[in-house]
């Protein structure tokens, strides 16, 4: 049965149903509903809720909890995640499959628009801490998808023993949609989890295990790419967009299709690993790619440029980039598309 759920609360409930045993969080707009929801919901089920005194404490407490082999999560936004970076790189080095939810706000520093954007894209997909590492980063575009991705997040994370992030946005967190909640599932203690007696220091520092970590990241790149294609059959122009922006793009694609334009949408669901295979699967008719995103300087374009460089048939394809700091209407996307077709806009060089 479908119910009306607020985005942030829906993510929290999905995490509970996926077997979250410990939630640690600190209030920050626009993700505070997750903290509030968990404060009531977790004790109700005999699980642990801790409100921390800073995001540094959040992540380090979650690392401690997750080392016992149970499913643990934290959530934050903007500067909160920046503050967590020392713990996030540690979680990767310690091979801890914890769940991080980033309800993206907007802009640098304190941040401005709580409606959000995807301007944490580069920080979150590259790993904002020291050393080279990646979180698996999944970007939902609807509340139902946010629920489904949260529900399966630990399954993926535990498979590779790699931390995972759901990168949602302020708008998606604050709005309400009809959602089909999944059933509660079992989440037994992982066999590598602390038992108090194991002599083997499994959670040692990265130091001598570089090859192991590289192999892990390669395996994730190979098996965990996710994307959605929308009306890309016979498309000459493919728009690449993710998150809330992709929803508006779908509207723009529908309008353009009605006007007889051959336009489609490729929506990365995993921002890392970036869906290179999604580009490989695009039809031969594609002549140009337009990357549309919500940020101040164009971030997703970097991944698209790297991807198209790798694939022979895209190497000389013109690529265009539209970015604005705040979510913009379909009209502006259509205007930009028209300018691209009439060669008023220059391709990215």
């Amino acid at each position, binding site marked *: 049965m479908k119910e009306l759920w607020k985005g942030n609360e829906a993510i929290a409930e999905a995490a509970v149903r996926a077997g979250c045993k410990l939630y640690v969080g600190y209030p920050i707009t626009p993700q505070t509903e997750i903290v509030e929801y968990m404060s009531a919901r977790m004790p109700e089920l005999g699980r642990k809720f801790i409100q921390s005194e800073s995001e540094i404490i959040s992540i380090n*407490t979650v690392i*401690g909890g997750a080392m016992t082999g149970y499913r*643990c999560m934290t959530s934050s936004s903007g500067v909160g995640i920046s503050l967590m970076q020392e*713990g996030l790189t*540690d979680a990767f080095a310690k091979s801890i499959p914890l769940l991080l939810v980033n309800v993206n706000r907007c802009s640098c520093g304190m941040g401005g628009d709580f409606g959000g954007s995807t301007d944490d894209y580069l920080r979150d997909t590259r790993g904002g801490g020291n050393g080279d590492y990646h979180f698996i980063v999944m970007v939902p575009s609807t509340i139902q998808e946010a629920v489904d991705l949260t529900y399966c997040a630990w399954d993926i994370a535990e498979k590779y023993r790699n931390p995972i992030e759901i990168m949602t946005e302020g708008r998606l967190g604050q709005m309400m949609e009809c959602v089909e909640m999944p059933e509660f599932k079992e989440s037994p203690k992982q066999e590598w989890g602390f038992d108090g*007696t*194991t002599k083997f220091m499994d959670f*040692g520092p990265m130091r001598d295990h570089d090859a192991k970590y590289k192999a892990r990241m390669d395996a994730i790149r190979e098996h965990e790419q996710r994307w959605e294609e929308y009306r890309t059959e016979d498309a000459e122009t493919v728009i690449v967009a993710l998150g809330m922006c992709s929803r508006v793009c779908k509207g723009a694609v529908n309008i353009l299709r009605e006007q007889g334009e051959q336009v489609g949408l490729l929506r990365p669901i995993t921002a890392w690993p970036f869906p290179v295979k999604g580009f490989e699967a695009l039809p031969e008719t594609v002549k140009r790619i337009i990357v549309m995103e919500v940020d101040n300087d164009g971030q997703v374009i970097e991944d698209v440029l790297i991807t198209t460089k790798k694939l022979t048939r895209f190497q000389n394809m013109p690529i265009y980039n539209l970015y604005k700091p705040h979510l913009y209407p379909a009209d502006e996307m259509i205007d930009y598309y028209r300018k691209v077709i009439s060669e008023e806009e220059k391709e990215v060089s």
Partner: protein
Amino acid sequence: MAKYTKYPELLSPNGWCPGCGYGIIARLIYEVMEEKGVSQNHIYVGGVGCNANLYGALEGGNKVECHHGRAPVCANGIKALMPDTFVFTIQGDGDCYAIGMGETIIAAHNRFPITVFAVNNANYGMTGGQTAPTTLTGQVTTTSPKGKEGKPFDIIPQMRALGVDYCARGTTASLAEIRKLKKYITKAIDLQLQERKYAFVEILSPCPTNWHKSPLEANEYIMNNVIKYLPLGEYDTSKEE
């Protein structure tokens, strides 16, 4: 109490400097853990610095190395999901009172049911002897070449103000004090095992290498100078209503 003449089974040879207090501290903690039957069933949460040598020296139980200053909150995460396992932290003074001051105070304020040991050698030992909050007034270090200005930080009044059930300061600088220290450690560990309560023990430890003293001189320095600033003793309010 049983007398221990043999070296604890689970303690390996260690890598600390000659005259360092850590070897004695590790041995005392392990002796008590053997007496309490948790030497094979515990989780040690450590910090960064000289105490990183403990990861090689302590052989039973699980170990985790935390980022600088974060050990108490990490221990709290573990304790939340494994409430029946003995969880303790050992941190240095830079770890506990500088970068990790927030975590130290919060752990005490929230009474996480863990046992916190802070080893105070009045400087950052592993990085070569820089000024720490605990460095004595006038003490010369590599970052206070003209001697430190200001007072050394004293955690015990803070802990008492926070109202923790048990806090103590001991030292490894004399045999009599080592015996007292073992009693402090025993009480702190008992408090977690029997009553699930937070306890804090600071241990003044000599650092001959960075103090540029012989091991004996370093011990005398603690007994003659350091304890004037940082007095020894225990404060037990766990039995009070």
